[in-house]
């Protein structure tokens, strides 16, 4: 298959470019490229990666809960004034969100890219599973991202600001975020991979962070996007998904009942893409708008990625055949097979 016509290949090129920009931005442009970006867009900056221009709105949310809203509530001040910075951050986030919608997760996020590439390595090592997680497990995991958003991004920081919990819980999500460790390690800095003995809280949080970082790496080799499934950014995106211009649209046909390839292709295991037969907008809360379901839909225009009203990528039977063949070839030819001395597999044209 011509790589230039393969949406997954195009997406990986975009993901790699975004990763380089966001993790090593200042090394490419200028030292303060990151600062320039964050100076213009105060809601979007990762303060832990000195060389990067990582985009994460969760840091300011936590700081604003802790240092602004919590402080205002504790001192009996004007709550609207305390909320103002958060509203500005949210406004900036929504402005960008309208442009990309949840495609930030599937096309831009460095942590998502890292997990995808780990999974590719897992496939080549022959560790790949045909299906990722079963429906029950997926269903049980879905509320976790909402709990993390509510408690770790807003709840504990707010309580720390008010004074109900200790200040080590002022930015608890950042303290456990694998991206903090990943982006700093990617820059050759080990200062974020630590066990912190300063207090019981920091000890517990740092143990969780390090353990989860290792766990994520190992799981990503066999399970698609393990951390994305519990990422509060996914939940935050889900809140505003009706505002975004890029959407996944389905024109269901009776044939959909008997297929289900779209759900199997989905890296987030969203079975509803297959089962939904009424709604046209199928940008579900876990969707990252990667477009993989569209690629693996065999019926013309049944699934589409649409920007506003314009289709940008539509399901097509010819594309499906070529893409499926390329995928089968990719999955069959593993290093394990090569090491065993088995001949390279070829897929017959259908």
């Amino acid at each position, binding site marked *: 298959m011509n790589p230039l016509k393969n949406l997954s290949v195009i997406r990986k090129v975009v993901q790699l470019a975004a990763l380089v920009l966001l993790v090593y931005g200042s090394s490419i442009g200028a030292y303060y490229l990151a600062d320039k970006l964050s100076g213009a867009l105060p809601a979007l900056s990762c303060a832990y990666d000195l060389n990067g221009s990582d985009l994460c709105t969760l840091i300011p949310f936590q700081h604003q809960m802790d240092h602004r809203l919590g402080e205002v509530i504790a001192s009996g001040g004007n709550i609207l004034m305390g909320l103002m910075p958060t509203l500005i951050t949210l406004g900036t986030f929504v402005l960008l969100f309208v442009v990309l919608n949840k495609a930030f997760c599937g096309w831009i996020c460095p942590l998502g890219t890292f997990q995808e590439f780990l999974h590719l390595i897992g496939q080549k090592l022959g560790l790949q599973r045909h299906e990722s997680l079963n429906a029950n497990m997926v269903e049980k995991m879905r509320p976790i991202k909402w709990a993390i958003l509510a408690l770790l991004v807003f709840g504990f920081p707010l309580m720390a600001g008010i004074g109900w919990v200790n200040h080590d819980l002022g930015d608890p999500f950042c303290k456990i975020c694998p991206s903090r460790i990943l982006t700093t390690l990617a820059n050759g800095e080990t200062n974020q991979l630590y066990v912190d003995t300063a207090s019981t809280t920091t000890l517990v949080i740092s143990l969780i962070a390090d353990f989860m*970082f290792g766990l994520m790496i190992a799981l990503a080799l066999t399970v698609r996007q393990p951390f994305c499934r519990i990422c509060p950014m996914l939940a935050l995106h889900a809140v505003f998904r009706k505002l975004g211009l890029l959407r996944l649209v389905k024109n269901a046909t009776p044939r959909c009942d008997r297929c289900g390839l779209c759900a199997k292709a989905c890296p987030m295991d969203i079975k509803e893409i297959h089962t939904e037969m009424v709604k046209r907008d199928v940008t579900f809360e876990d969707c990252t708008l990667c477009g993989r379901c569209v690629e693996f839909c065999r019926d013309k225009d049944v699934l589409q990625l649409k920007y506003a009203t314009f289709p940008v990528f539509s399901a097509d039977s010819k594309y499906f055949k070529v893409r499926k063949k390329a995928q089968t070839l990719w999955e069959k030819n593993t290093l394990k097979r090569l090491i065993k001395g088995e001949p390279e597999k070829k897929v017959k044209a259908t």
Partner: protein
Amino acid sequence: MGNHVRALLFTCTMLSGLPAPVLHAQQAPGHQPEAPMANQHRRGEKKPMIANAEGASVTLWAPDLSTQPARIEQGEISLPKTGVDNYHAMVIEQDWGRYKEALVQYIYRRGKPSKESPMRLVNAEKTTFEVVPAPLPRGHYHYYTQQEWGFKLRFQNKPLANLPVVLETENGSRIESQANAQGEVTFLLPDDFPGIVEGERDRRNADFTVTAEHVDNGITYRSALNAEYRINQSHWQSLDMGIAVAGLGLLVGGFIGRAKSNKGGK
């Protein structure tokens, strides 16, 4: 926030006319120790103070390179408001005729987004002879002990090579070095805070200065960069344990992945 406002005392011998400046910092008179919870919301700007200020001029550079003079009243420097956030530069200059001295300190101020990169401010010629941070720590980054940080010497906005440079800390350390051909010099910030207890968080900070002297056309220029440094977190954060715990996560993840692969996958 009045009780939370801290002050620095710049006892600059340059301002008292002595040839060798020794900069150190101390709390302003009347400073009260802060309760742990009260400390967590401290956002007040540190108020610089200056001794023997006669004849000294203080200029505040905003991120957009606009400048405003600052007032000195009874040794306390009142920096004018600029209304914008980001790094500002406070430049103290003293002209003794054939002996000119300058001290630069970068100060982060809150306000509306300045929409300017600090690089612009750092690169701007703020005084004839200047010690420039390369880079300026930003965001969650600060000068920490046991870390190497770079500085550049710049005279009339051009690099100045091979000059001796001295780093002195408030805790009494003194390190001498020499700038390279590009005017760059690197210092390992000394781990010189007294009474550090391993395993316990220590949020103390102190000031350091990087000073150099240059003679041009019979005029002696002495310049210093003043900044705050903190205790390295490695005293209570263990990388080795971090690696071990991440390794444990890897093992558990590998075990789970292997079990799932055997159960349901190819």
